[in-house]
């Protein structure tokens, strides 16, 4: 066990998996110099063939990752900031996600996409969006959103070993968070939620950077005698419905906290599933706490008004407790 930051956990997962499997390689914009630090040092270790800078051409290099995967490689493709995925949407949605199915199970697409998402203060609408809801309805993609260094390492390693396309969303504000991370071959299975805190009064499902925020609220509300259970689904597709329903059968109340825009959010999808399968367990309507339905604004007070904060999460919890 060592104390690692989120970024160090990413680097550990990448270098361990690249060491393990010579068919892996990294491609993306400025991965060699590593602007945000997640691939720092890998060029020196694995060389420019396997740590491959690309031109600024998302459709091109994302598609190249798809092609390389179909031809036997195991690409790890970095899209610097999540909204740039839109520039490569066809290659992800029409190609990577569909090719196996359309080819009657012939194609194998062991690709890991990694991307930085979320609002971290003053980057404005084209750099701050929570992008995963656009990909959630796409059959053939796995979507993973780690909330801390240990999950980051374990999920990224599983993503790289997965023989299907997996997109790992890494929150821009979590880079320096630090915790104990198991050494060596630590794998977190994709599709398994994590109960981050136990409680019997209400289940709070939180995603990505909303997890530490929900944990802070839970700690605070404990002082008022409210026992909040915080669950991190960790993977949105597939979703660990069982863990969520088990929690719901104990608490009978649920709040879902998502940094995405409310309409069409992951929170909406989870709420629909819980309502459909857990209706009899509910003592109150499910509450979604999500971003306001406007692009993420630049100015700090506006950004803060749009993204769920602790006050809004606490208010959501109190609302379902009645």
């Amino acid at each position, binding site marked *: 066990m060592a104390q690692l930051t989120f970024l160090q956990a990413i680097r550990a997962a990448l270098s361990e998996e690249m060491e393990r499997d010579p068919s892996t390689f990294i491609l993306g*914009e*400025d991965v060699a*110099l*590593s*602007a*945000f*630090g997640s691939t*720092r040092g890998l060029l020196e270790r694995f060389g420019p063939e396997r740590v491959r*800078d*690309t*031109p*600024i*051409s*998302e*459709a*091109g290099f994302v598609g190249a990752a798809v092609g390389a995967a179909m031809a036997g490689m195991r690409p790890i493709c970095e899209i610097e900031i999540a*909204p*740039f995925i839109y*520039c490569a949407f066809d290659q992800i949605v029409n190609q990577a996600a569909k090719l196996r199915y359309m080819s009657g199970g012939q194609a194998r697409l062991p690709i890991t996409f990694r991307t930085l998402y979320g609002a971290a*203060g*003053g*980057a*404005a*609408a*084209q*750099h701050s969006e929570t992008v995963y809801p656009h990909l959630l309805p796409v059959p053939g993609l796995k979507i993973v959103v780690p909330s801390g260094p240990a999950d980051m390492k374990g999920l990224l390693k599983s993503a790289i070993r997965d023989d299907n396309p997996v997109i790992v969303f890494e929150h821009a504000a979590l880079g320096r968070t630090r915790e104990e991370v198991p050494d060596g071959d630590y794998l977190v299975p994709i599709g398994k939620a994590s109960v981050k805190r136990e409680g019997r009064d209400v289940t709070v499902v939180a995603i990505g950077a909303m997890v530490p925020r929900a944990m802070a609220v839970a700690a605070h509300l404990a002082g008022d005698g409210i026992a909040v259970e915080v669950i991190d689904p960790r993977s949105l597709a597939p979703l660990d419905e069982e863990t969520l329903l088990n929690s719901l059968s104990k608490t009978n109340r649920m709040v879902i906290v998502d940094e995405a825009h409310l309409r069409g959010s992951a929170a909406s999808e989870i709420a629909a599933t819980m309502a459909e399968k857990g209706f009899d367990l509910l003592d109150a309507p499910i509450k979604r706490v999500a971003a*306001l*339905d*406007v*692009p993420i*604004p*630049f*100015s*700090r*007070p*506006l950004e*803060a*008004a*749009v993204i769920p904060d602790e006050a809004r999460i606490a208010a959501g919890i109190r609302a379902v407790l009645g």
Partner: protein
Amino acid sequence: MDIGKEVVLEMYRKMHRIRQFEQKIKDLITAGEIPGFAHVSIGEEATAVGICAALRPTDRITSTHRGHGHLIAKGGDLARMMAEIYGRRTGYCKGKGGSMHIADFSLGILGANGIVGGGIPIATGSALAAKLSHKDDVTACFFGDGAANEGTFHESLNLASIWKLPVIYVCENNGFGEFTPTASATSVKDIAVRAKGYDIPGYVVDGNNVLEVYRYASEAAARARAGEGPTLLECKTYRWEGHVVGEQAFITGSYRTEEEVARWKARCPIIALEQEVLGSGLIKREELERIAREARDQVEAAVEFARQSPMPEPAEAGEDLWVE
């Protein structure tokens, strides 16, 4: 081509305004007074100014993440720009956009852009609109050398060529896309040669020589207005500062040499123009000094305006999404 004294003075004024504005932004971010991040264009002033000097007020531009210079060159108001970068409600976008998204539609500035290559099809569409409405307005499209590797660049040049659109594609080749040297990301030495593939004229221009940029831009604008279609101008220049202000804090190692930076600083576009006009006796030194002083004062006044301006109220986050 004879360039009148007034045009030259105005270009000199704009270049100083950009230099002072960008230097100020850099200082304010470094001092922690303004939030977020910004891409400044110190050293690249001649390209923005030479292009926009050839445009009319009704002509339009699209810009990039490194857009302050383009906006100032097209007549952008320093105070409202500064207020936007401060996130104030008096800013051009009421605090919703910030440095990377400033726009002033009344001046034909269709906006900076946070997406590399995002503005290129937009400029193309703006030119299409001029053509469809039988106006002889042109659109100048600024983008970087890095953007010339995006599909949008290639798709746009093809469209503009087949539709003979009145657009000037202005590639500011400043040597880098983020931390990657242009040479290692681009198939050709001169991006201008890519024009050939789309059967349009393409020229390599000294992007640090404002008079040369102005001449090429004037010619391209004249062609566009005459219905002869698009032109690609590759303006070779250099970014003196980092990709983003403060990058030293998070990148390790360097991606260029001190000598290279010094070599380009010795080719300062502002000093080059000074030498040219003083040498020809067109303008006196005192006049130039006065212009430089005025630019400094304007930037100080802009900072003051921004500091005094209120922040937006949280409820304003819900406004401006829809045409009501």
